[in-house]
């Protein structure tokens, strides 16, 4: 595989994507929703419920988490402690959904879009190998997705720190858990989603069909979210690293499979 050839297709696709607001919108909007809207709404929601005199059962909230978490919230009033646990622990798996959602339009569009715009034949006639084409299509979805995730994380950290710094007198983000989530688990998981979406995109007739099938990919991440909230699973550094290793192994299998079943003829026969 020649990386400079991969980058030729990557640059071409990125130029096209930049000029297509339908594709670029999720990459921009999803980080804003996650990093600003979610913490602000959650924070203000719990402040309001506390102000109205409702009391929160903290034991129920922290039961699935490690004992050290109780030390972290020491000194915080109950309403802020709830927000803290929600924003730093329960919703941590949300960061894993960002790359999947941000990239789903790009990865679904990868080959299906070329088919719909009838550009497949000229692209396939170029002396690029199957693996170069496949990897280029994965990268063009992966890089914006990871940028969106990192930018979300930075904005989220700023908002969360702004909320808790006055009470705790320290910065709560970034911490090791989140750094591992953002820089290890999120890319590993994103590659699974993007790899599958690109394979689907190369084997269906159009973009909509590809996106409908790829939309299902967010579901396993929601399982992680519920597992963390219910206390079944705690995403600590060890679990995150272990999951990332498993996901990277799955990535390798998906890539090998994707390149193996990549078929120029199949792509042409699906032209509308």
């Amino acid at each position, binding site marked *: 595989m020649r990386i400079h050839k991969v980058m030729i297709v990557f640059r071409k696709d990125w130029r096209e994507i930049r*000029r297509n607001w339908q594709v670029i919108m999720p990459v921009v909007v999803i980080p804003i929703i996650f990093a600003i809207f979610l913490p602000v709404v959650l924070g203000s929601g719990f402040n309001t419920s506390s102000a109205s005199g409702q009391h929160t059962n903290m034991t129920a909230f922290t039961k699935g988490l490690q004992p050290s978490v109780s030390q972290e919230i020491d000194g915080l009033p109950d309403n802020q402690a709830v927000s803290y646990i929600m924003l730093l622990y329960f919703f941590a798996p949300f960061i894993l959904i960002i790359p999947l959602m941000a990239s789903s339009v790009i990865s679904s569009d990868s080959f299906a879009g070329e088919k719909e715009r009838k550009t497949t034949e000229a692209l396939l006639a170029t002396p690029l190998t199957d693996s170069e084409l496949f990897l280029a299509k994965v990268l063009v979805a992966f890089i914006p997705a990871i940028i969106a995730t990192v930018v979300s994380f930075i904005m989220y950290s700023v908002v969360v720190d702004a909320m808790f710094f006055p009470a705790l007198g320290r910065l709560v983000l970034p911490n090791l858990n989140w750094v591992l989530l953002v820089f290890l688990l999120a890319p590993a998981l994103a590659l699974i989603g993007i790899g599958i979406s690109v394979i689907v995109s190369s084997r269906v007739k159009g973009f909509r069909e590809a996106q409908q099938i790829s939309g299902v990919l967010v579901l396993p991440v929601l399982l992680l979210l519920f597992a963390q909230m219910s206390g079944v699973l705690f995403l600590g550094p060890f679990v995150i690293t272990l999951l990332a290793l498993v996901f990277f192994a799955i990535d390798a299998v998906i890539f090998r499979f994707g390149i193996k079943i990549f078929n*120029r003829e199949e792509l042409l026969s699906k032209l509308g």
Partner: protein
Amino acid sequence: MPSIEVSNLTKRFGNLTAVDNLSFKIKEGEVFGFLGPNGAGKTTTIRILATLMSPTEGSAVVGGYDILKEPLKVRETVGILTENPSLYERLSAYENLDFFAEAYGIESRKERQKKIQELLEFFGLWERRSEKVGNFSKGMKQKLSIARALVHEPPIIFLDEPTAGLDPAAAKEIRDLIEMMSHKEKRTILLCTHHLEDAQRLADRVLIINKGRNVALGTPEELEDRVGGTPQVEISLSAANKKIVAAVKSVKNVVKVSAAAGRLIISLKNPKSTTPEVVSAVVKAGGKILSVNPLRPSLEDAYMKLMGEKNENS
């Protein structure tokens, strides 16, 4: 060594045989016309030769490379104008050509720039190089697609309907370009077309296919002769009379003469040797000749007749 050698090429899609045991050779620098009705298997054959599809049976060597063993080398050697323009409409004309030039291996930016400018200027698109292709007319897109096929200066070019969607002036420019590329630059051109006059004017040889099968292969003249029957010559005179008609009839190898309004239509054998004798006889009989034209069936006549015969036989 032939530039393209196709041996017993067959392509089946389920029960449908799109290309049926096709064999032919194309010499270097030759313009090879590929004619046939819609669905005859022309585009499928081009796709197989461009390594976009694999044959069910048979093989082909393109530019010295086996299509099954060295598809990447084949793709480097070939420039292809596809049925659809296959252009990125959100990119500019320049960006489109730049992408394909780089994908085809022109790594130097300067070299790409020079080649792209040359092509866009030739096709009259240089002034609009920064405009998005989505805003281009059908004819402009067709020109840009041809430029894309030529951007890496391939020795072998597959052109699928190159004059489709072009106005007469632009179509002439393309025909001139094809002639120049074949005669001066010795590039091999496989020309798929419905325009029989394009094939007649440009093709050194023509292959007519129907339902994936070889119907006829030869130079346009050979195909015309195959369907032409007895050759005819037309002589226009300032005035025709019985004496002139009698003089022509007396010439050896003249089969039939008909005269009408100063025009003689003469059916004859061995036209190359008989025509000068006929002209001489007319002059001796006092006829004043305005013009002498051999009457040949056109490639269109040949095509229609050959296709008709094939349909009757199948």
